[in-house]
Structure formats: C-alpha cells, structure tokens
C-alpha cells in the first residue's frame, strides 16, 4: 500500500532522514518510534509532502506521490497531530467539513457526513456542531481533529503523537476508539510516537528510527524478543520494567 524508497531529507546540509526504505501493508498500522531528533516526524511529513524529500520517493498503491500536486495528495490522506490545529474562526462543523468542501462536495452531502463523523467520534452533533473549538476540552478537540482527518474518506492516515497532550484516561479511551475506527474503515496508518507503551499497544509493526536511519522493523513481539541493537534493547526495557512492576503490585510473578 505505502512504500518508502530511499527517502532522504537534508536540513542545512545535514541528513535528518537518511535513505529510509519501508513498506506498510493495506490495513496495517505501522508505528514510527524514536527519540527526539530521530527523524520520525520528518519522515511522516514527507509522506504527505508537507516536507519535500531531498531524494527518494513515496509510492501509494504503486503510484509515485510526486506526480500529484501537494494539495491534491493531502486531500486524500488524513492527518492528525498533537497541536490538533482546529481553526478558531470556524465552528466544529466547519472544521470537519473543510476537506470535503475543498473537494467540492454537495453541501447536503457534507452536512450528512459531518453529523455521521461527529457521532462516530462520540460527540453528539446537535450539541457540538455549532460550538467554537475553543469551547471544547482537549480530548473533545482531538476527537474533532480525528473527524476532520477522516472527513473525505481517506484510505491512509498519518498521525503525529495525536494523543500526546491528553491526560492518561482520555488518551486510553481515544486510543481504543481510534483502533476501532481504523479496523471498521480498514485504514492504513502510520503513527509517530516516542511512547513505548503506546507503540506496543497500537502497532501491528514498529519501525525504530535512530538518527534518521532504520534501526529495526518488526512486530512488537519480535522487537521485545530479539532487539537488533543496544538502542532498541534499551527502548524495550522501559515497557518491560513497567509491566514487571505492575505484575509485582498485583502479586504475580514476572513472566514465564
């Protein structure tokens, strides 16, 4: 579905992403994991060309994305990020309706779609439709952000630490809901995070980035079992230790 081929980006002559090749299967969620400066956000933004690659290419369904104008490409890809970026001068409904209106959908069709999506992200349309984004809680805002990203029925979703600024309970709830939506809609997704636990919970596979290069890619189990290098091993220690700690509090022995 999505293929990155030798994707490279330089900033001021320095490679931030360096020759990255990866594939993501249809309906799969791939987590891009790494510390700050590992190049995970830059990689994500090169997929919808918010950042232009210095070299290399991205194919979606075999088609080189460089063939499309950037704005047309982005209309076909959902994008969610930590700052959410709801437009404060537009109502909730107007925010959700943006991409369909850019695509020239029929207004009645847009209205139906907005209500359907607000319901889907568990915001009652009649209550939230005409609210200003500023009047919503952080969790509610990110629900609107998710609805906006899904509005034009994209098949690919890019998410950049979308739940990073939320409190743990809200984050947990939204993670579950997102997984449900993703499965229902059979979305292919790339999810950037530096949170190991989130990566293990959500990822079908995890790609670990280290200074712009791919350190290892595999299922959570593979990464936990056989880390490819010391960096990956160190990353995996954190969730392991947390799990052991939790088990001890619950009075159980750690692992087999």
């Amino acid at each position, binding site marked *: 579905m999505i293929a990155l081929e030798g994707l490279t980006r330089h900033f001021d002559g320095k490679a931030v992403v360096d020759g990255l090749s990866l594939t993501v299967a249809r309906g799969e969620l791939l987590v891009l994991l790494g510390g700050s400066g590992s190049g995970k956000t830059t990689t994500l933004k090169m997929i*919808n060309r*918010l950042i232009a690659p210095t070299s290399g290419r991205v194919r979606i369904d075999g088609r080189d994305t460089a063939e499309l104008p*950037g*704005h*047309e490409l*982005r*209309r*076909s890809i959902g*994008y969610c*990020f930590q*700052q*959410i*970026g*709801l*437009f*404060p*001068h537009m109502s909730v409904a107007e925010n959700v309706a*943006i*991409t369909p209106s*850019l*695509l020239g959908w029929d207004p009645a069709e847009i209205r139906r779609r907005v209500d359907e999506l607000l319901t889907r992200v568990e915001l009652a349309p009649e209550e939230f439709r005409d609210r200003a984004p500023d009047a919503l809680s952080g969790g509610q805002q990110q629900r609107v952000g998710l609805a*906006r990203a899904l509005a*034009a029925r994209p098949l690919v979703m890019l998410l950049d630490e979308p739940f990073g600024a939320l409190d743990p309970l809200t984050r947990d709830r939204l993670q579950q809901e997102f997984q449900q939506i993703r499965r229902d809609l059979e979305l292919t997704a790339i999810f950037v995070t530096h949170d190991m636990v989130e990566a293990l919970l959500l990822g079908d596979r995890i790609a670990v980035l280290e200074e712009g290069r791919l350190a290892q890619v595999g299922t959570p189990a593979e990464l936990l079992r056989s880390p490819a290098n010391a960096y990956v091993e160190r990353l995996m220690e954190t969730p392991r230790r947390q799990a052991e700690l939790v088990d001890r509090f619950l009075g159980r022995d750690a692992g087999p």
Partner: protein
Amino acid sequence: MIEQLALVPGYLTAHLRLSLLALAIGAGVSIPLGVWLTRRPRLEPGVLGVASVIQTIPSLALLAIMVPALAALGALTQRFGVPLRGIGFAPALIALSLYSVLPILRNTVAGIANVDPALVEAARAVGMTDRQRLLRVELPLAMPVIVAGLRTATVWVVGTATLSTPIGATSLGNFIFSGLATRNDAAVLMGCLSAAGLALLLDALIRLLEVGMRERSRARVGVAAATLALLCGYTALSFAGTGGERPIQVGSKAFTEQYILAELMAQQIETRTGSATHKLPSLGSTVAFDALAAGDLDVYVDYTGTIWATIMQRGDLEAPRDQVLGEVTRFLDATHGIGVAAALGFENTYALGMRADQARDLSLSRLSDLAPVSPRLEIGGDYEFFQRAEWKSLLATYGFAFARQRSMDPALMYRALQEGEVDVISAFSTDGRIAAYDLVLLDDDRGVIPPYDAIVLVSARLRREHPDVMAALSALDGAIDAAAMRRMNLRVDRDGEAPSTVARAFLAERSDSP
C-alpha cells in the same frame, strides 16, 4: 461663527473625500504588498524600511514635495494629452496615500506572521492550496491586526489631511490655517473639532465592522457597512459634481491681507464679469507661484520684492520702486507668460518691529541703532524670513548679532512679541496688528529692503482666454493705498470681521464714490 458653520459641509465633504480615497488606495496597496512580503521574507526588512522612511518625513514636507513632483510629472503626461494638476487634490491624495501605507503594511505582515504555525500546518494538511490557506485561514485570523493598522492609518490620514490646505486641496485645514492667520479662534476650533470628530467616527465605524464580522453579527456589519457605503457614495457624488467649466482659480497665501485681497478680487471678477471663481486659500508662497506658472492657479497677489529676490534671485536690493516693478513685469512675461494685471497701490515690505515701550526705553528708531544692542535681544521671524535674501543683506549691512533667532507662525509671532518672548519680529508694513499691538517699525535707514509693491499676477491662460476678467482686475490698479490696506487688515485681525465682509465693504464704498 455662523459664517464658519456655513462652510462646514463643503470643507467636511472635501476632507472626507480626500481621506477615504487615500485610505482606500493605501489599503489597496498595503494589504496585497504585505501578503506578498510574507511569501518573500527576505525582502521584508527593505520594504518596511522604505515605508518607515516615508513615515518619518514630516507630513507637511511630504505634502509640499508632491507639488513640484507632480508638476514635473504633469509636464510629462501633458504630452500624452493627460493633464495633471500640480496643486490641489492630486498631490494631497498621493502624499496621504503614502502616509497610510506603513501602519497597514506593518500590521498586515505582523498579523499574518503571527498566525499560529500549527494552524498553517493544519491548513496545508487538510489540502488547501496557498491561495486557499491565505483567504480561508491566514487573512481571517490576521484581520483584527490588519484592521488595527487600518484604524491607525485612518486617524493619521484624517488628521494629516488638514495640512493639505497649503498645497491647494480644500479640507478642514482651511478653517485652521485661515483661523490662525486671522486670529479667528472659533474657526481654528471648528477645524480641529470637525477633524477629530471625523477621525473618531471613521475609526468607530471600522471597528464596528470588524467586531461585527468576527462575531458574525449581521446587525453590526449592516449598520457599519451601510454608513461607510453612504459616506463613500455621498463623496463620490460630490466628486462627480465638480466637472464642467473650470471656475477662475483665485489663490491666497496664509496671512490676513492675502485673504482679504483674494476675496476682493473674486468679488470684483464675479460682479464685473459674471464668471464663477474658486478660492484656494492659505497656499505656501512658492506653491502659489509655481501653481500660477503651471496654470493650475489663475490669479493671486504677490509682491515685487518677493519676485525680485526669490524668483529672479537678484542680489541688488536697493533698486528704485518703479524700476523693480518694470523689470519684474518684463521678467514674468518673458519667462513664464505671467502677466501683471494691476499694481494695487501699496507696498507691504518686510520691516523689523518692536513694542513701542521697549523701543522707547532703548531709544531705538532706526535699524542702525538696533545693531549695537542686538546681542541682548531675541528676534522672531516667519518661516521664510531667515532664509530670505533680505535677511542676509540686513545682517551684512547692519551687522546684527541677535542672542537668538526663532522661526514661528506669523500669527503667533505677534503674541510672542507682546508677551516678551521675543524682542524684535519680522513684520509686514501693512499689518493691522502693528497699530493694534502698539508696535513701531524701525526705519531701514540704509535702504536694504527692496520695494514690495503688491501686484496682481495672472496666469498665461487667463490673459489669453478671459480678457473681461483681465479688465476687471486691471480696474483695481492703484485702488488701495497702504493706509486703506492697514485698516482692512485691522478690521479682520482686531475686530474679527470676515475677510469677505471687509472686501465687500471696500468695493461697495469704491463704487459709491465717483
């Protein structure tokens, strides 16, 4: 007071027309330019720098610069059959438009630059083109800041527009300049209050429009937009009404005698020929001459000594009166096609004046006596005086060494002398205030100051196309002696009569007597 009130609608309309059009041009240039600059951040410091430099030019100077600039441009466009007036509406409009650029431009750039980067990223991510991002996200979010700039520009432009009077554009400044020159405080107050009221009104309307748009209140937007549209429509209609045959343009400089003489000439023309006149009051001295030479002005009164020294650049100041008049007349005709329709019969020369009591205490009557005591005295002069050739000759001949010299508004100069802030002033020999304030003029015993015969100057066009007007003006030759002029000046300066009333009385008295 009532006479002043009658002038309000005309001045207010002209002021509004000038301000609104300047703001429209300013915003029309600055907002697109500001947007363009946010796309080319490297050019931003340079362009904002130029706009700032324009802003630092004193507004009066910027307006004055436009006159020769437009006259030069007018000479060029004339060849393509497009006439462009060097004085009046056009130069004032250009200067005010330039003046409104900086606040709008700066706020447009700042408003767009300060849009949250997350919103810019979101706008791109949802698939907006650059243009859609600008129109749907950046401009709406920057609008409060841009409108704040527009409001600043509005207050500046409406205020500064009062200074367009000396370059021949009618504005509420007509009240202020003529009021200051003729000591009519009611007129000054009227001009200031009207301009301030207009600035506040426009500011409030723009604010109402912006708040209404932000809060999506149809009522507020409706009221503000309708009122603004009404004002624009009204001024546009009054603009359309100014077409047709051009009336005779009668100019005056900014002092009492000039207002009276302009009224007198206009009334003389209207009653004798029936031609319509339009008065351009309070012009700068060189503005008036340049405008006459360019044909933008048809008639005004100047003085032989002024032409002799500033236009002809003649250094030999001690020439006899008749010789100067003859040479000036020939020079103006030969070089500019300007005619001298009449010599009015009086001289208004520069003279140095003092309070009578102080002159008595120091036993001064002649300029030669003044030189030895000058280091203990301060002198005040009008804005031109210390730059003039006469002042340089006075210094060279008498060897004055005043403790301090101060340029001041002629209207305020007399008060400064009265209150002892200065000891000597540059005065005009026909000034009614000389008697009113009990001043003495010191005798130019070494004959340095040239003759200053008041002469009626007429444009080449008027000479060619309006022989009847020429005849009406020539009838004023020798009609006014110095005493008569001083009396008329005093009636305005001391008694607060309107220049038009005084002029009318003079003409009536003249036609009654055989």
